[in-house]
């Protein structure tokens, strides 16, 4: 790259014009020490180009210049240039000399003349002010006066030789030549003689003048071929040079709010910083409201914001938005928000771009809204508007401005969602707003058609405007139909009723289960009672048996006593004794247990 550059500089040095876009498309500017011809019809921008080159050379590189005016009076040219912020008055003192070379209509021509005298005068002036640039504006007027084709060629050569001799850095000829024909006999020769030809064109398209520029010849160097749009802003002429073929934008992973929470959720956390969002919809679908909400949220975060509206007053918009709880006026007052309203009739799209760029440079916003961007296509044809819309979005991206633009589409067919401006393809996020008419109601629906690099909801949401701002509500799909508005309310009521029913059913079931549980408990109690009774019975039975055993033993003893029998050697009473003992102790144990059981039942 650097090597190529070196070679180019060696063989074909160039000199920058300082005109935005031109130096890029010509790969460096005009040919140094050579002649450049600017041709085009009246009012196509030749003079502005030439003068702006002089001004920028004088101002930026301190290179004075001479402007030879053959067609217009210098005062007239200076007055015309006053519309640009060039501060010519300061330059006119030392850096810029205007030579009035008008041959007024009163001048009588008698025979041939030549430019020897003029070039002698210019040389003197050049040496006096150290001029490096020279412009011959309206050279066609001069050449026409020469009358003879031979004289034309002779004088053109004379100028060329003079320029070479005097080492002028850059010479510009402007000539009123449109593509179809010319009064100059040696037009072909003029084209041949110069090293660079730049063609200007101004044509009407849909009632708006569109300016175009094209480099048609540039000896010994590459240049961007094709027509490029020209616009005129406060700084002068701007040329929309070729877009860089490689898109170099650093993608940010930082998220910023799209305006309200639910929308952010749908977008997977918000919009990416520096991304562009397109909101489409037919009129009345709340595009402005959503973009207003975005602007308000940005201001609340403390980010400088620019709100550009077309065909509607900024104050009116701010006023309207208060009805849906969006407060922009305080931020306008604090300077955080800049609102600008532009007209669109009879203004070329290119001029809008210049204005937008100027607004960006002036306000330096982090977030920006254009509502609607589609308005720029109103005047001057679609092709230009498309190009401008694209370039605007690229400009914003380069400056890392998070942009929300709206576009109106006529008709409500889904396939018509693609906008005339074709920005849907370059926008990162595309939100579509539509109406759904069901059950005698017109309800607003919001869909995210695309959102690059992020998960996003694929569900349609109902957009409801309330005093507190826009709100998104779920929609129901029933039998393949999306329900909104009243139908949604009904569906929601139905859902609520169902919930209540489910709850009561559950309660019933629970009660039944509780009842069954209580029943079981009761039964357990009854059984325990039975058990107790049975144990008591059993205890009673054993105690009876003991009584019987004791009484039997007593009877035996009594019998022995009566009979005076010997007690020793008899096992039977010994075997009866432990039995007796066991049951005796067990008897008391049973009563203890009984007490315990009673205590438990009591609790």
């Amino acid at each position, binding site marked *: 790259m650097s090597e190529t550059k070196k070679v180019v500089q060696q063989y074909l040095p160039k000199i920058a014009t300082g005109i935005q876009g031109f130096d890029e498309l010509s790969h460096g500017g005009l040919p140094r020490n050579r002649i450049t011809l600017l041709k085009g019809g009246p009012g196509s921008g030749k003079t502005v180009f030439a003068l702006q080159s002089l001004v920028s050379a004088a101002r930026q590189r301190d290179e004075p210049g001479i402007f030879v005016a053959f067609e217009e009076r210098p005062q007239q040219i200076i007055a015309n240039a006053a519309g640009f912020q060039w501060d010519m008055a300061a330059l006119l003192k030392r850096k810029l000399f205007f*030579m*009035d*070379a*008008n*041959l*007024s209509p*009163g*001048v*009588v*021509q*008698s*025979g*041939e*003349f*030549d*430019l*020897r*005298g*003029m070039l*002698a*005068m210019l*040389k*003197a*002036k050049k040496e*006096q002010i150290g001029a490096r640039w020279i412009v011959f504006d309206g050279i066609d007027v*001069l050449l026409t*006066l020469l009358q003879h084709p031979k004289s034309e060629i002779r004088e053109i050569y004379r100028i060329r030789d003079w320029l070479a001799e005097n080492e002028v850095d850059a010479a510009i000829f402007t000539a009123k030549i449109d593509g179809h024909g010319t009064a100059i006999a040696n037009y072909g020769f003029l084209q041949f003689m110069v090293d660079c030809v730049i063609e200007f064109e101004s044509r009407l398209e849909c009632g708006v003048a569109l300016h175009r520029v094209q480099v048609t010849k540039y000896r010994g160097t590459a240049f961007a071929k094709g027509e490029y749009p020209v616009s005129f802003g406060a700084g002068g002429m701007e040329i929309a040079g070729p877009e860089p073929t490689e898109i170099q934008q650093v993608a940010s992973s930082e998220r910023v709010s799209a305006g309200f929470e639910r929308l952010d959720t749908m977008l997977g956390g918000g919009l990416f910083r520096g991304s562009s969002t397109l909101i489409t919809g037919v009129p009345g679908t709340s595009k402005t409201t959503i973009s207003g909400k975005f602007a308000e949220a940005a201001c609340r975060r403390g980010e400088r914001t620019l709100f550009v509206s077309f065909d509607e007053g900024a104050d009116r918009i701010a006023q309207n938005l208060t009805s849906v709880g969006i407060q922009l006026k305080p931020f306008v007052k604090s300077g955080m928000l800049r609102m600008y309203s532009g007209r669109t009739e009879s203004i070329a799209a290119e001029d809008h771009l210049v204005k937008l760029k100027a607004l960006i440079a002036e306000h330096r916003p982090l977030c920006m809204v254009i509502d609607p961007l589609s308005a720029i296509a109103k005047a001057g044809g679609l092709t230009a508007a498309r190009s401008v819309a694209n370039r605007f979005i690229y400009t914003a991206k380069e400056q890392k401005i998070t942009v929300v633009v709206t576009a109106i589409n006529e008709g409500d067919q889904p396939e018509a969602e693609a906008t005339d401006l074709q920005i849907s393809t370059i926008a990162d996020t595309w939100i579509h707003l539509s109406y759904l008419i069901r059950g005698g109601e017109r309800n607003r629906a919001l869909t995210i058609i695309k959102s690059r690099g992020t998960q996003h909801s694929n569900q349609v949401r109902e957009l409801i405007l309330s005093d507190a701002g826009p709100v998104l509500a779920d929609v129901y799909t029933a039998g393949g139909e999306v329900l909104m508005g009243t139908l949604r309310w009904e569906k929601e009521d139905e859902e609520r009723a169902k919930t209540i029913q489910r709850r009561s059913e559950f309660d019933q079931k629970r009660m039944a289960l509780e009842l069954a549980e209580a029943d079981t408990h009761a039964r357990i109690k009854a059984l325990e009672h039975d058990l107790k009774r049975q144990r008591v019975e059993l205890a009673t039975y054993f105690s009876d048996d003991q009584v019987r055993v004791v009484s039997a033993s007593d009877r035996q003893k009594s019998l022995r006593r009566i009979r005076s029998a010997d007690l020793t050697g008899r096992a039977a009473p010994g075997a009866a004794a432990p039995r007796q003992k066991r049951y005796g102790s067990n008897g008391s144990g049973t009563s203890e247990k009984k007490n315990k059981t009673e205590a438990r039942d009591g609790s």
Partner: protein
Amino acid sequence: MVRKKKGRASSDPVTATAVVMVLYITDSGPNSVRAVANLEAICKEHLQGNFRLEIIDVLQYPLRALADGVVVTPSLAKLFPLPAATVVGNLSDKSGVLRALGIVE
């Protein structure tokens, strides 16, 4: 080179109706040489010495010529009698020059 030519001797008073002219030329350029010759002939024939002519070589006095509003050369400026008039070219078209000088209507 500034040459002053008068129809009469420099000491003679110029009459109130004398024509005052300045001819801007470029040294010995072909058009300039022709212009001087043509003008001298016209003066001789039509003004009978009742004129004052100043010839300025723009190559020598470019800034003066610039200040005088000269655009191309040769260029003849008639300063008096009013109205002032300018004729450009080598003055080969005699009738044009005569009209400009107010000699013929």
